[in-house]
C-alpha cells in the first residue's frame, strides 16, 4: 500500500503516544471497546479530469476505540487509531491516531495529555474557528474530519466560566488527495514539499486559550490561537520533474475568534467569527445563521430543521477556499424512528455567481450493530478562477457500511 504515512510530529509526540499506550496496556483487564469497521464505495458521475484518476473507488475503514475509566471517574485513558486503505489513491490511504490520551478530571480542573480532538464552533456549513486540530481533507471535503493533535491541555472551571489552556507540540500537516485521487486541486498539492514560515518547521509549539460560558439559553466562547496556521497557502510552483504543483506553505498566525450558539423556542442561533493575521494581510471571516425546527411535522414523529447560514471571508477572491460570500441553505430531517434515520440536504451558493455545491447525507441503523450511510456531493458552475474549479467533474455518490463494536 503506497500510503503517505501520517506524520505524527516529533519525539514529544511519540513519547506521549507511548505513555498513553503503556497506560492502556496497564489497564488491559478492564478495557472497554467501541468504534467501527467499515467498507466505503464511491462512484463518480463524470469522466475524470486528469490522467490516472478512476471512475470509482473502494475503501476499508477501521476506527476501533479502547478506553478505561477508573472507578472514581478521575482517570481516563483512551486510544483511538484510524485507518483507511483506499483502492485508488495512495494519499487517501492513511493511518492516524485520532486519540491517545490520558485525562485527569478533578472537581475544578481537567488535564489532558496526549493526542486528542477538540471541537470549537457552532455552524453547520463551515468549521471556521475550529483551529486546534488539522483537517483530514482526504476523509471529507466538508472539513469535519480531523487529525489527532498532540497536546497538553488544562481546563480550569471557575465561577466566571471555563478557561482552557492548550500547549500544542507537533504540527500536523493537512492531508490532500494524490495525483490519482478525485476531489483534488489542479495542479495537485505536493504534500512532500510543505514549507514553513517558522524556522522550527513542524517542531514549532503552538499555544491557544479559550474562555467559554453559558448565559441562560446561550453558550459563548472567546479564543485566541498563536502558532502555525492550520490552513496552508497553496503556492503554484514546479516539482523536481518540472511538473506544475501546488506547495502548501504554513505561516505563523494569530487568530482571535468568537463562537456562539443559542436556543430560543424553535430557533437555534449560530455564529462563528474570526480575525486572523500573519497570512497575507489580516482578515476577518464569519459564519452566521440559524436552524428553525418544525417538531412532529405533519402529524408524524419527524422533526424538520430548516437551516440558513451566511459565510463571509474577508480575503474575497484571494481566499484559499471558496466561502468568500456564500449562502448556505439546508434541511435536516430526523425521522425519530427506531433506526435513528436522518437526512441532511444542503446547498452552498456563491452570492457572487461563482457556482454552488449541493450535498446530501443520509444514514440509518441496520439491526443493532450496523449503520448504512449515503452521501452525495454535486458541484455546479464553479468558475475557472475558483481554487477548486477542478471539482466540477467530481460529482459523486458514496455508500458506507459500518459495523460497530
Amino acid at each position, binding site marked *: 500500500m503506497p500510503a503517505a504515512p501520517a506524520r505524527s510530529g516529533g519525539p514529544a509526540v511519540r513519547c506521549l503516544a507511548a505513555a498513553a499506550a503503556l497506560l492502556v496496556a496497564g489497564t488491559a483487564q478492564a478495557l472497554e471497546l467501541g468504534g467501527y469497521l467499515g467498507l466505503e464505495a464511491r462512484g463518480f458521475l463524470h469522466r475524470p479530469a486528469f490522467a490516472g484518476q478512476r471512475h470509482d473507488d473502494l475503501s476499508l475503514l477501521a476506527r476501533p476505540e479502547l478506553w478505561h475509566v477508573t472507578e472514581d471517574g478521575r482517570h481516563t485513558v483512551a486510544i483511538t487509531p484510524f485507518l483507511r486503505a483506499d483502492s485508488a489513491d495512495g494519499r487517501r490511504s492513511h493511518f492516524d491516531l485520532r486519540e491517545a490520551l490520558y485525562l485527569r478530571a478533578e472537581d475544578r480542573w481537567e488535564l489532558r495529555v496526549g493526542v486528542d480532538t477538540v471541537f470549537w464552533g*457552532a455552524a453547520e456549513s463551515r468549521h471556521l474557528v475550529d483551529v486546534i486540530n488539522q483537517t483530514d481533507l482526504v476523509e471529507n471535503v466538508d472539513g469535519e474530519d480531523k487529525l489527532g493533535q498532540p497536546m497538553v491541555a488544562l481546563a480550569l472551571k471557575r465561577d466566571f466560566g471555563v478557561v482552557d489552556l492548550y500547549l500544542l507540540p507537533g504540527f500536523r500537516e493537512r492531508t490532500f488527495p494524490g495525483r490519482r485521487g478525485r476531489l483534488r486541486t489542479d495542479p495537485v498539492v505536493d504534500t512532500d514539499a510543505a514549507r514553513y514560515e517558522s524556522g522550527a518547521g513542524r517542531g514549532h509549539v503552538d499555544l491557544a486559550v479559550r474562555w467559554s460560558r453559558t448565559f441562560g439559553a446561550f453558550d459563548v466562547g472567546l479564543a485566541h490561537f498563536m502558532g502555525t496556521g492550520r490552513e496552508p497557502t497553496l503556492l503554484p510552483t514546479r516539482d523536481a520533474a518540472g511538473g506544475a504543483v501546488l506547495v502548501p506553505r504554513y505561516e505563523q498566525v494569530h487568530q482571535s475568534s468568537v463562537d456562539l450558539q443559542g436556543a430560543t423556542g424553535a430557533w437555534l442561533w449560530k455564529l462563528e467569527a474570526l480575525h486572523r493575521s500573519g497570512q497575507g494581510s489580516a482578515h476577518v471571516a464569519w459564519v452566521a445563521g440559524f436552524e428553525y*425546527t418544525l417538531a412532529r411535522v405533519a402529524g408524524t414523529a419527524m422533526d424538520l430543521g430548516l437551516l440558513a447560514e451566511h459565510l463571509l471571508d474577508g480575503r474575497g477572491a484571494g481566499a484559499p477556499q471558496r466561502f468568500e460570500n456564500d449562502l448556505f441553505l439546508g434541511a435536516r430531517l430526523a425521522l425519530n424512528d427506531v433506526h435513528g434515520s436522518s437526512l441532511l440536504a444542503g446547498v452552498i451558493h456563491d452570492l457572487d455567481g461563482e457556482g454552488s455545491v449541493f450535498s446530501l447525507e443520509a444514514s440509518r441503523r441496520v439491526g443493532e450493530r450496523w449503520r448504512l450511510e449515503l452521501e452525495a456531493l454535486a458541484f455546479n458552475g464553479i468558475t475557472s478562477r475558483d481554487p477548486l474549479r477542478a471539482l466540477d467533474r467530481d460529482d459523486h455518490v458514496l455508500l458506507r457500511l459500518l459495523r460497530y463494536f
Partner: protein
Amino acid sequence: MASALLLACALLPGARAESPVEKGLAIATEMHRRDSGWGDQRADMVMILRNRQGQESRREIRVVTLEVADDGDKSLTIFDHPPDVKGTAFLSHTHPLMPDDQWLYLPALKRVKRIASVHKSGPFMGSEFAYEDLTSQEVEKYRYRWLRDEVLDGRETMVLERVPAYEHSGYTRQVVWVDRIMWQPLKVEYYDRKQTLLKTLELGEYRQYLDRYWRALRMHMRNHQTGKSTQLEWRDLAFRTGLDERDFDHSALRRVR
C-alpha cells in the same frame, strides 16, 4: 407556605368546600414535597422497544440526576447501546416554565451542540417515551384538576388531570392516577393535540430508597395509535453519590465515556 395551607385545607375534615382545581394543585404539591431532598441519583436503564409486529430493539443508558432547589433538576444521560450511539450524551437543565436548556454531545466529533427546546415533544431514542415524559415534573409545569378518587388494581388512588403550562408540549392534557400511600403515579394517560388518547404509561415495581423516596423500577408505555410499546427498566439506583453543579456543566460533556 401557601401550598402547605392548601394542603392543610385538603386534609382537614369540615374545611370549606375545596374546588377540584385547588385539590388538584394540593395533591401535586404534596407529591413534590414528599419527593424532595434526595440530592442526587445515579441509575442504569434498559429500554425494550417493540413495534406492532412484536420486533424488539434494545437501548441501554446511564442517567445521573441532580436535584436543584427552586428550579428544575439537571440530568446527564449517556448512551451505551446501540453501539453506533455509544458515548453520545444528553445534558438537560430543566426549568419549571422557561424552556429547558439542552445539549447533545457527539463523541465522533467531540462536539457539544445546543438542542432547540421544541425537541422535548420528540421521541427519546426512537422509543414511545418523549423527552418531556422523562424529565423532572415540577409542580409549576402543569395546571391541575382533581377528577375523582378511584380504586385501581386494588390500590386507592386520586385521579388528577394536568394540562402542560410549558411551551412546545406534544400533549393537550394528561390523566394521572396517584397512589394514596406512596404519593406516586401508577398510571398516566396522554392525550394528543386532537384530544384523542395517544399513550398510556403504567408504572410498577416501586421500591423505597433512603427510607423515604419511591421509585418505579418498571415502566411500560403503550402507544394506542401506532400499536408500538416501550418497556423501561431501572437498575442499580444510588442516591446522594456526591455530585454537584459542576458535574452538570456543559463542559462536563467533554469527558463523558
